[in-house]
């Protein structure tokens, strides 16, 4: 018999309940496995489960607690992750046919850090094929469904993590973000999603898509849960040459201290030009953005309009060049040998990536530093954080956004990533937070963007909003 109250606890709540021995890890894992069996198929979010291992590890976790060991912050908590985080001996199919039998010989650093914190790794969640797409469609493994309404997309590429966490099938989950793949599905499913600073979290043992743009981060139901998971997985890793030595503050310690006097920037135009960053925003999403800004004002923050650097306008396209070239390079062998094994959209995107010249690619990489420096000076000299939408339109249905490789699909995906992809390009930390509902009853989120390595500021700002604007999830009736 499923205990829904247990499933609906937050990550921090279930962790505390386990440490206080109000519930055993075996009870929690059994409950999760029952929920996954009962409701997982209707969301089509589960790639595979490790039930026997999970129950054995839960038994060990309970015994360790009985013997008086000092528990880690996630002792005995079951979690599922996007199907691209490697664990030695376990299949990582990456949402594809090509890797359906791929068994890695190493474990992702982020998973090892969760292991050390006491978490139990009980399965993998579906994703967009090779993490290359924002809608959540997958021609190979089937489309994941949004728990708020199964006719709508959950967003991608971390589609399974978003659906599972919003649907109370996992207390949190790791995803990846190359063009918005954590924040976009977090926004579609009403979750908190952190894309940390580039280099803050090791990507070792996570499937590469575009090594210059790939970020690892969590999707959760609360800000504190997101801060906790980010705290655990962040840090320098010698196995990832792009990870940085940076001080790591306690992301949870100052999270309740409020935002009185904080300066929040709302982007306007690119330089003095006629076009603006928010030009393509749907009115219903605009309405939710304005509501969220009103909440911030009521909390004592100062909201100011701020023009963005003129060159920021090309960030989305520069990210597309880098992602296109790097992903096509990574997939070159498979593209030659088994192109028919890709879904049509993935194959066409990868083939398009082959058309970028080396000069285009290097220009995009060289411009990155120039645009970053201009952005830091022109934005963060004036405001503490930037407030922006995540998804430019109300969440579309699976049917209306099923563009596959039809003409114009690249332009459509470029539009969808308009607000997210530029911050992967700049590498700045960005946190997606649920704002409200559009007229279709689906969530819409905003993102907060901060200077490099200022994740703590984002959590504090988001927590202040969350306290004032509590979020409730739908009663899931699927299955």
């Amino acid at each position, binding site marked *: 018999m499923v205990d829904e109250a247990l499933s609906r606890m937050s990550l921090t709540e279930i962790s505390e309940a386990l440490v206080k021995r109000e519930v055993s890890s075996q009870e929690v894992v059994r409950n999760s496995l029952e929920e996954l069996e009962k409701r997982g198929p209707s969301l089509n979010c589960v790639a595979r489960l490790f039930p026997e291992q999970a129950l054995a590890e839960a038994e060990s976790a309970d015994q360790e607690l009985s013997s008086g060991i000092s528990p880690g912050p996630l002792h005995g908590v079951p979690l599922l992750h996007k199907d691209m985080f490697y664990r030695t001996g376990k299949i990582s199919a990456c949402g594809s046919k090509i890797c359906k039998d791929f068994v890695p010989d190493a474990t992702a650093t982020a998973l090892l850090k969760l292991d050390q914190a006491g978490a139990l790794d009980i399965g993998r969640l579906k994703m967009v094929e090779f993490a290359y797409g924002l809608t959540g469609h997958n021609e190979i493994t089937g489309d994941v469904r949004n728990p708020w309404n199964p006719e709508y997309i959950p967003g991608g590429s971390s589609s399974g993590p978003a659906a599972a966490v919003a649907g109370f099938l996992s207390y949190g989950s790791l995803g990846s973000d190359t063009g918005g793949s954590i924040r976009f599905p977090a926004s579609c499913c009403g979750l908190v999603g952190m894309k940390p*600073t*580039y*280099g803050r979290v090791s990507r070792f043992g996570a499937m590469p898509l575009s090594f210059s743009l790939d970020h690892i981060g969590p999707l959760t139901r609360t800000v504190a849960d997101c801060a906790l998971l980010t705290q655990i997985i962040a840090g320098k890793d010698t196995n990832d040459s*792009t990870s*940085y030595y*940076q001080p790591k503050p306690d992301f949870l310690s100052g999270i309740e201290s409020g935002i009185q006097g904080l300066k929040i920037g709302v982007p306007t135009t690119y330089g003095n030009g006629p076009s603006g960053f928010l030009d393509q925003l749907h009115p219903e999403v605009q309405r939710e953005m304005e509501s969220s800004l009103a909440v911030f004002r009521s909390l004592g923050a100062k909201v100011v309009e701020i023009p963005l650097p003129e*060159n920021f*306008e*090309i960030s989305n*396209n*520069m990210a*597309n*060049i880098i992602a*296109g070239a790097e992903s096509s390079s990574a997939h070159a062998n498979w593209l030659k040998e088994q192109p028919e094994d890709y879904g049509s959209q993935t194959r*066409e995107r990868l*083939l*398009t990536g*082959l*058309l*970028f*010249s080396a000069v*285009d690619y*290097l*220009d*995009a*990489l*060289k*411009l*990155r*530093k*120039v645009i*970053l*420096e201009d952005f*830091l000076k022109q934005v963060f000299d004036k405001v503490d954080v930037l407030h922006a939408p995540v998804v430019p339109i109300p969440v579309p249905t699976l049917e209306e956004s099923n563009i596959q*490789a039809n*003409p*114009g699909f*690249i*332009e459509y995906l*470029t539009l969808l990533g308009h607000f997210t992809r530029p911050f992967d390009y700049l*590498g700045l930390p960005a946190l997606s937070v649920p704002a409200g509902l559009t007229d279709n009853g689906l969530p819409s989120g905003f993102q907060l963007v901060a*200077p*490099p*390595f*200022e994740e703590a500021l984002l959590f504090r700002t988001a927590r202040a909003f969350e306290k004032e604007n509590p979020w409730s999830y739908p009663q899931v009736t699927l299955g």
Partner: protein
Amino acid sequence: MKNKWSAFLDQNYDVPEVQFALKSVKIITGTKKRFLKHLSFETEPAEYGKALSAYKLDIQLEEEKNG
């Protein structure tokens, strides 16, 4: 320009998917032209990482300098 394309593209130039892809690439790459003049001759891609990782340290040093 056509001579620089691969044999595959030459052979498939009239295939609609190839034409769509070429059009997309042209749009995407065309936007950077007006900003390239701001790149100095010595610019290297790795400078991005330095700018990202040094930002916080630079701010702290500036604050210390200003008391």
